[in-house]
């Protein structure tokens, strides 16, 4: 693990966790969870629509409250914890970014598909200019070989990103995949630039992949209490923290308080258990964007199809993050073919 940068754990339940909650987390509950994470010493918490700033839409789902309402409420509640917001260029704009900064967000993560970093120039540039902790987030990173991924990471760094993430949006990677990608980023990016890893637990690799990432030089690791996140969820943060404590790695978080947030606040929020069911498993197995899960299940119910078949077909068509509109389209094609 890098000796230059301190380990920073980043909590996802109030952003990635919006996917299994269909973006309906009540405002009071979000404030309560953020407050409890603050108490537990979690340094950084992400709060946004699951698909980032501006994600409120027919395509991704309308949230219970606007990004601005969530962010203002949470930012005014936390004391030590810093709040981040996600932004996907093509969905959110620099106007959303300015709004988030105005609400008190201190970290902006600009996410693109792993081959499309050059759409993030405007947004990374502005975040840097606003003096925010600026992160580039390369999604579906399993779709790029390490050498290609590092070129995209270098672009984000050149636009002003202080951190670049290897993002396993499909929960597809195995530890060796993480090691090669994170290791190459660590070797080729400037020593001042931090490297991060965001995992999904679809193949139960969340903790193992996070450790592989740290070993290869990543110092920012994402996780979520009780794993609340898309697909089979994110790396379960309380589990990762327990493992890190056993390893003697300094993380600054109160393990028992974090376990209590997971058990007493997050698990009771779940509409259905966030676990590796067969659909979540197929996401990881076939390399499909994790937030497609519920959309595929709804389309399957509506058109009398198997959600697993829909997800496999979405993988076969090489869909990328944000293409939720393809799910009903694919289901219509499959239903027509079955007739």
């Amino acid at each position: 693990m890098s000796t230059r940068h301190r380990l920073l754990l980043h909590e996802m339940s109030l952003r990635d966790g919006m996917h299994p909650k269909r973006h309906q987390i009540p405002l009071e509950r979000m404030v309560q969870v953020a407050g409890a994470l603050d108490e537990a010493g979690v340094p950084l918490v992400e709060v946004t629509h699951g698909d980032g700033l501006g994600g409120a839409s027919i395509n991704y789902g309308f949230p219970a409250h606007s990004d601005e309402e969530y962010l203002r409420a949470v930012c005014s509640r936390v004391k030590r914890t810093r709040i981040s917001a996600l932004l996907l260029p093509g969905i959110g704009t620099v106007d959303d970014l300015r709004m988030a900064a105005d609400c008190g967000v201190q970290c902006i993560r600009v996410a693109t598909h792993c081959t499309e970093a050059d759409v993030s120039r405007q947004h990374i540039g502005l975040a840097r200019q606003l003096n925010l902790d600026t992160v580039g987030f390369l999604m579906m990173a399993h779709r790029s070989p390490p050498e290609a991924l590092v070129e995209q990471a270098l672009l984000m760094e050149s636009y002003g990103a202080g951190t670049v993430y290897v993002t396993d949006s499909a929960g597809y990677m195995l530890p060796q995949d993480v090691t090669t990608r994170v290791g190459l980023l660590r070797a080729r990016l400037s020593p001042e630039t931090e490297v991060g890893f965001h995992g999904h637990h679809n193949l139960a690799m969340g903790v193992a992949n996070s450790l592989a990432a740290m070993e290869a030089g990543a110092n920012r690791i994402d996780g979520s209490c009780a794993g609340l996140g898309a697909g089979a969820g994110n790396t379960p943060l309380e589990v990762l923290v327990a493992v890190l404590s056993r390893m003697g790695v300094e993380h600054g978080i109160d393990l028992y308080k974090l376990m209590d947030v997971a058990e007493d606040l997050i698990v009771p929020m779940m509409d259905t258990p966030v676990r590796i069911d067969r659909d979540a498993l197929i996401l990881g197995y076939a390399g499909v964007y994790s937030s497609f899960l519920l959309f595929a299940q709804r389309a399957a119910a509506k058109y009398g199809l198997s959600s697993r078949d829909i997800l496999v077909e979405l993988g076969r068509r090489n869909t990328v993050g944000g293409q939720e509109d393809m799910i009903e389209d694919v289901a219509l094609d499959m239903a027509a073919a079955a007739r």
Partner: protein
Amino acid sequence: MTKVNAVIIGSGNIGTDLMYKLLRSEWIAPRVMAGIDPESEGLARARTHGLVTTDTGVEGLLPLLELKNIRVAFDATSAYAHPENSRKLTERGVRVVDLTPAAIGPYCVPALNLERQLHRDTMNVNMVTCGGQATIPMVAAVSSVQPVAYAEIVATVASRSAGPGTRNNIDEFTRTTAGAVEKVGGAKRGKAIIILNPAEPPLIMRDTIHCLTEGEPDVAAITASVERMIREVQRYVPGYRLKNGPVFDGKRVTTYIEVEGLGDYLPKYAGNLDIMTAAACRAGEIIAEQITGGAR
């Protein structure tokens, strides 16, 4: 027989594809292409088709305007460069068709408002965005039947068909498209999303158009209106197809569109470029008709 002389500014994907369409036009003759890269393939192709080229951008072009009797200019550069380009051209009496998302002139979608937007004194007309050209006709197909409270479009294009202009301008794309979904499409509120997909072989441009109607949607009337509009757009973009839908789900009406290009310059998957250049060509032809008084 006299055609109206035109210039193309920008020698990239859009400018080059547009040149092939203008070369087939009965109303317009492309005479000059202006670029900034002397090595660009677009300029080389323009020369082989007899166009005069300059690699010093609009500055290099200005002395040629009078010499070549240029009356119409197509700007396929970027939203940043367009306002200044337009000013220099319009003050010299050249009418401008804007293919960037700068949108300083009125929006124009040929299937919907071409004649209405193109008054004889309109010096600058904007072609919205590729996603706007592909999706706004579907919004209008619904809003012409009954009020649309909200429309949202998702445009997915092959990575290879998105050049540096689009990539550096992605916010301008979403803003301009959303604005035109309202102003031209007739939705009370509009939103636009763009996705780039790097799949190989590249996917054909596809668009999803969601409308939320105010009352219960009139299924028969909307279905007929969508089918009519598809045929209308096919008059200038033959590869414009209804892939699925309209799907009715409560007040949501969704159509799934695919746009295959003619393959003039770029491959057929780049329907996003084709629909833009085909629409701009149509707009330019109407302007040419006005300039010649409808007679050649």
